[in-house]
């Protein structure tokens, strides 16, 4: 169920490409989209090409250079631009490698919760009645668990690993999508063009995908980018308490946990992962905010 079916662009009259183009033009006019997008893109490039960019292996312990200061300090060295941690590991390299886990979790978990939440929202909002009530009861019940407790229970049960973290985030956060998207589906469902499509012989399935889904996609994109930020924080929290991934994989949360002991003597070791988390989450939120303003027709007038 690809959101924007580009296959239709062969049909010059379909007009769909121009809808997409209009949306892209509006997105390009949003400075928030540019700032957020560029930061996220840079982070992704760093993550993908980490082995080529990072000066050291993130796990290499150089016990001769423990807690080395950053290169701009009086006795810093350019071999370790951001210094080393208590075990002599290069902070910069660890930060770069940490982006891999953070962004993997962010993208896959956001995608997963979007799929799960939006599908249930579409079904509930479209069919209404008993289906909708059932889904709503589940969401109500689900949301009454504190999210941290829920993810802890899940991880204790599932074990550690990136895939387990992704699963935990999806299972905790799908309700957010379900709630918000369902409200939008309900509004669209009541529009006459949905009934018109049914009268023209559209099956429920086709009506849902062709008439209702496109109307809620802007909202889903917005929620997706905000959800990425949430997923990064959840992952950092879980790895901070050591429940996320095996120690052999570097994450920002782990770096935070390791830096706690030497917080006073080497603040750079602590501040680096903090800065990484703040900048990426902020970028996600900026992007989401910009997308919302650009794609929400209700806000369009004020922007223009």
């Amino acid at each position, binding site marked *: 169920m690809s959101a924007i079916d580009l296959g239709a662009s062969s049909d010059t*009259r*379909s*007009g*769909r490409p121009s*809808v997409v183009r209009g949306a892209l033009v509006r997105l390009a006019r949003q400075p928030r989209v540019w700032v957020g997008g560029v930061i996220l893109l840079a982070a992704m490039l760093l993550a993908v090409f980490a082995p080529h960019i990072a000066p050291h292996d993130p796990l290499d312990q150089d016990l001769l250079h423990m807690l080395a200061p950053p290169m701009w300090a009086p006795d810093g060295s350019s071999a370790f631009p951001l210094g080393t941690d208590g075990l002599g590991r290069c902070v910069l390299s660890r930060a770069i490698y940490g982006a891999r886990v953070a962004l993997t979790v962010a993208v896959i978990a956001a995608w997963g919760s979007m799929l799960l939440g939006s599908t249930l929202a579409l079904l509930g909002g479209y069919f209404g009645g008993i289906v909708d009530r059932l889904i709503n009861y589940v969401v109500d019940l689900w949301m009454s668990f504190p999210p941290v407790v829920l993810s802890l229970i899940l991880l204790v049960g599932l074990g550690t690993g990136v895939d387990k973290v992704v699963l935990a985030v999806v299972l905790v956060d799908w309700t957010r999508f379900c709630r918000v998207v369902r409200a939008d589906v309900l509004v669209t469902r009541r*529009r*006459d*063009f949905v*009934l*018109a*499509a*049914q*009268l*023209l*012989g*559209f*099956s429920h399935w*086709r009506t849902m995908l*062709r*008439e209702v889904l*496109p*109307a809620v996609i802007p909202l889903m994109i917005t929620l997706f980018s905000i959800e990425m930020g949430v997923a990064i924080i959840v992952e950092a929290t879980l790895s901070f308490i050591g429940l996320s991934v095996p120690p052999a994989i570097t994450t920002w949360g782990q770096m935070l946990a390791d830096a706690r002991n030497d917080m006073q003597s080497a603040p750079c070791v602590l501040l680096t992962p903090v800065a990484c988390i703040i900048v990426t989450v902020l970028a996600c939120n900026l992007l989401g905010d910009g997308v919302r303003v650009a794609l929400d027709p209700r806000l369009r007038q004020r922007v223009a």
Partner: protein
Amino acid sequence: MLSIDHLTLSTGVDGRQVDLIRDLSASLQRGMVLGLVGESGAGKSMIGRIIAGHIPTGFEITRGRVLFDDKDLLSLDRKAWRALLGRRIAFIPQEPLTALNPVLTIGRTFNEHLAHLGVAPGRRHQLMLEQFEAVHLPRPADLLHRYPHELSGGQCQRVLIAMAFVANPALIVADEPTTALDMVSQVNVLRLLAEQRRQHETAMLLITHDLRLAAHVCDDITVLYAGEQVEYGPAREVLRRSRHPYTWALDQATPDVRGAQRLLSALSGQMPGISALGSMAGCRFAARCPQRVAACEAEPPAATESTPGHWVRCLRPRNISARVPIAADGCETTSADRATWQTPTGDASAKPLIELQDVTLRYTARRGLLGQRKVHNLAVDGLWLKVQPGEFVGIVGESGSGKSSVAKLIVGAETLSSGVLRIEGRDRVLANSEVRRLNREHIQMIFQDPHSALNPRRSVYRLLTQTYEADRRAVALAGHPREERAQELLTDVGLPEDTLTRFPGQLSGGQKQRVNIGRALCVMPRLIVADEIVSGLDVSVQAQILNLLIELGRRHGIALVLISHDLSVVRYVCSRVIVMQRGKVVEQGKTEEVFSDPKHPYTQLLLSSVPPADPSIAWPPAVGAVG
């Protein structure tokens, strides 16, 4: 008392100054009513906003004065202006429900208003009760504790009228005060306004789209077209002896509920928008005017006084002695044309297309914490209806009469609670899925709100031929390429070629409704159900759509069930009519017979609430004629 003097309101469009309202002059004496008549986009509501001091940003008054009690409103400072509003000048808004704060009780809202007026707290309660009494609201003391949503639209409007008159204002500005109301409430509200005005000797500026209503209610009328004051004069003169071709066309486009039937002559095209005004040097109506000459487009015509007090802004005003209707293309309608025009009656000998026998529809609402209590609401109660192939049947009634539920039942969007619904002789409930699918193809629906009925993400091409994307397409489409069909439909509904690639957001209301009709036509249905399809349109566009429906019905032999609150529309289009009240049919028969000799008091009530075409007939009718 109120005098508007060469008022010009301008805004900048693409760096050029555009006059949204051009050179408007009018005056209003104490106790009189001035009507501002125009279609949507004519700039009539802007006049009300200027008087209220709410000129939107980006707009500016470049010329003229608005004198109220010999003071120029435009030169007053905000404080002095505010002192006038509510006290000397009161407003009655268009949407009574949105004008009242939904979280405050009526009493709280009224109390705040009285506080603003400086009424002592001790006197307020008594004053409120007196005011409610004066506007004939039942149980005034109880009303103070009610919330706006607990009242009907008519009652809300009465509350607002009571609030407007409490300060004993010299001028009331009423912007479409009855447009959101039912016909019967409209009559009651208008009568109440007249009564209150007489008591308080208040002058009223009535802003409306309804020329005939204005002619009955107002003393003077000024007609606006695209911000230009085209005609101004005594109300009856303006309607009966219209000098400007636009005023004449407006009247000609309005169907009658009584008297001889005639073909409606609809103006082609639509009113220019703000962006188009800048490039218009001459008369703004020239492009649609059947009598235009080259000079019309050169410069704006000056207002000339044809008879004392009757001003017209036209180079070639109509000669009032010759009363020939004008047609859309500028030719005059021939008598042959009018003779051949008649409502489609259908084939009475054929098997009925649809047949409803004692049909009821019950809505069940769940109340209580867990939805354990069920509340039943009978929307349709024992309906019998038969539609022959090619026949046009009208269903009239006020909101809540169940007429829209009938539409939903026929198209299958609602399931009947009891009774029998036969489509082409087969019972819908008992039919197998294949028959049901065929039935669904044979019955299409045109929706009330063209904006909501068209998916904004589809182009006109994909909307018109949307049915080609349906799962299992019927025989009707076999061997008919999609592009070809789209072209045919475009011609059928009279849209220009270049609309195919456009999106609903780029179309006018009338064009959207044409797309809506075209989409329903695509499968070549045998019956079309049209729910209030012209109520949101301007009169001239409404006439275009009605003529289109009749033509399509005749050309393709399609039957039509037209649901409308407007009796004159139903009379123009339908050969048979059904009058509904609270889910029940109270009267039915041939349209002409029912309308010329209504038997049921409710039908009589509905008919009496339509403003007659002849301005000399007293309307609104006296109390007693309408309950």
